[in-house]
């Protein structure tokens, strides 16, 4: 049985802002945020710890720019970590992480737990989890650990800008073509699920992105087309624009290898196209 608990003793008024009706709930995998292998108390920071701080930073800036802007609401999803519940909760408080809810579940039922919440996007570093979530109707995307480390003298944990990478294939590729191209039914299903989850996410990101200027924005959006070429890229750019999203960066591969390019782009959130397993991204592993 999944269990939920509210964060205790949260005093800051900013947290209350997050409970607004246009909060966009993202569920982040606990394994990304903390290193749960080491039995420390508080837990040590995981590879994507700085991501949570970046989300908080964006929320603060959004609230300043536009009081009506949607904000991120973060839920922490902890799979098979029941015995560490109190350590996890106290660690989030220790580091000042603004987590609105905790979801403790098992590997078998985590997608069901997520379905029963109002989570709009589940983020995990495990591609298997992302695939499973998509296949079971939970919007999901990949959370990418950063390989670029802050320079000497950088304020600790400042990760800016936060980069979201959308799949140009999911936006611009006509579905009929994909079945002709030999993708399986399961792959097409995952593609549709990925497209739907990405579309909703993109609309929210669009609203947030519009709060900032083109230059020096703490949030940047990139578009990458792996299978498609020029026409699909143009189609994706224009469709995104129709959604009110003016992407900052665009990369069209037309079959060139995505690994090295992802290493350059260094996205934090990667909305994958669902077409086949993304495990072959060594830059992110």
């Amino acid at each position: 049985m999944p269990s939920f608990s509210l964060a205790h003793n949260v005093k800051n008024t900013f947290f209350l802002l997050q409970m607004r009706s246009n909060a966009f709930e993202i569920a982040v995998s606990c394994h990304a945020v903390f290193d749960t292998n080491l039995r420390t108390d508080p837990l040590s920071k995981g590879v994507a710890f700085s991501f949570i701080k970046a989300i908080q930073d964006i929320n603060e800036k959004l609230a300043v720019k536009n009081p009506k802007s949607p904000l991120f609401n973060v839920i922490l999803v902890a799979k098979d970590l029941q015995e560490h519940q109190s350590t996890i909760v106290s660690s989030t408080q220790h580091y000042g992480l603004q987590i609105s809810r905790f979801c403790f579940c098992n590997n078998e039922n985590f997608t069901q737990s997520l379905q029963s919440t109002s989570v709009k996007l589940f983020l995990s570093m495990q591609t298997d989890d992302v695939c499973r979530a998509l296949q079971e109707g939970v919007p999901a995307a990949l959370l990418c650990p950063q390989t670029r480390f802050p320079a000497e003298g950088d304020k600790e944990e400042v990760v800016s800008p936060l980069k979201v990478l959308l799949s140009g294939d999911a936006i611009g590729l006509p579905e009929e073509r994909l079945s002709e191209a030999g993708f399986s039914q399961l792959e097409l299903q995952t593609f549709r699920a990925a497209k739907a989850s990405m579309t909703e996410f993109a609309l929210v990101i669009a609203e947030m992105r519009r709060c900032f200027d083109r230059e020096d924005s703490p949030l940047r959006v990139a578009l990458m087309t792996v299978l498609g070429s020029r026409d699909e890229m143009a189609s994706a750019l224009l469709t995104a624009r129709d959604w009110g999203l003016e992407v900052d960066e665009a990369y069209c591969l037309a079959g060139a290898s995505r690994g090295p390019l992802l290493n350059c782009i260094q996205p934090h959130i990667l909305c994958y196209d669902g077409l086949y397993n993304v495990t072959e991204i060594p830059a992110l592993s």
Partner: protein
Amino acid sequence: MSEIKPDDAVADGAQDAGEEKDWVAAKAFFDSLKTKKPRPPKPRYAVTIAVSSRTLFNLSEERKLYEEEGLEKYVAYQVEHESEPLKPGAAFPFVKALMTVNSRLRELYPDSEELFDIVLMTNNHAQVGVRLINSINHYDLTIERFCMTGGQSPIGYLKAYMTNLYLSKDSEKVQEAIEEGIAAATMFSSDVENQLSDTQLRVAFDGDAVLFSDESEIIVKKHGLDTFFEHEKEFENKPLAQGPLKCFLEALGKLQRKFYAKNQRMNCPIRTFLVTARSAASSGARVLKTLRSWGLEIDEALFLAGAPKGPLLQKIRPHIFFDDQMFHIEGAQELGTIAAHVPYGIGQKYHKGKLIEQPRSKK
């Protein structure tokens, strides 16, 4: 033929598997489109030319707007004029010539991936990309790969696209690329435009500090011509070290041999030229012997013995001419040749034989 790629483009096993999957899927998708457009080649086997937006198209008006009124106004202008195709830029004839070679290669080797691959590599904002794509459509250019970094330097991305040659209007970026070991040059167009061949790609190279290192040029600058001649004669049989454009000449040579293999030597759509200030008698032998030791051929070697390059280039009519000295670039431009400056070696510190005062460092 993955020797076409610079050494560190060779990847590890996991990356190879990923690369293969992306490639196979893209190919299947492209084939399903049943379009007349030629399919982009597999990067690992292709000669990849990355061109910036300002070299492919004439963006001088827009650039001025950006410099005077800033990014927002610039992007807004580009979006407003999105359906208006841009005018061709300095690299446009070169790109058309690459496409001509590709058609001939596809006729002779329909299943080969050893082709030219053209990538638009720009730090332009993605919204400007729509106008760029519309313009590419207008001229029916075969450019299917794009990298629009939205303000960041594209240099880090060159290797990700397996670039063999990078052309830009920005000499700082070009310099960075050369330092990364990628052949690169700053393009200059001229107001007068010579009529260029539309059936043959013609590429002209300077020798020292372009195909070869600047070791001999250093001798000229520091010790004068006489010492230089003596030195070159003495070391005639010692190959010169490589220069930044050597690998590009090598890639061209590999494609040329594909035509020779099919009896197309007389009709080869690629022709290369060496245009050097060296003189044949005193310092030319070393250059030819170096090329031979590298296994490279050059179709025509023209030794000018110090005479100006402009008039000769006007006769040759290359689609692009690479030189390390601005003096020669200017000479070429004056007489209608599209010139590309290679900012490498000791020549950068001199202008017309005189040592340049070091400029104040820019921002």
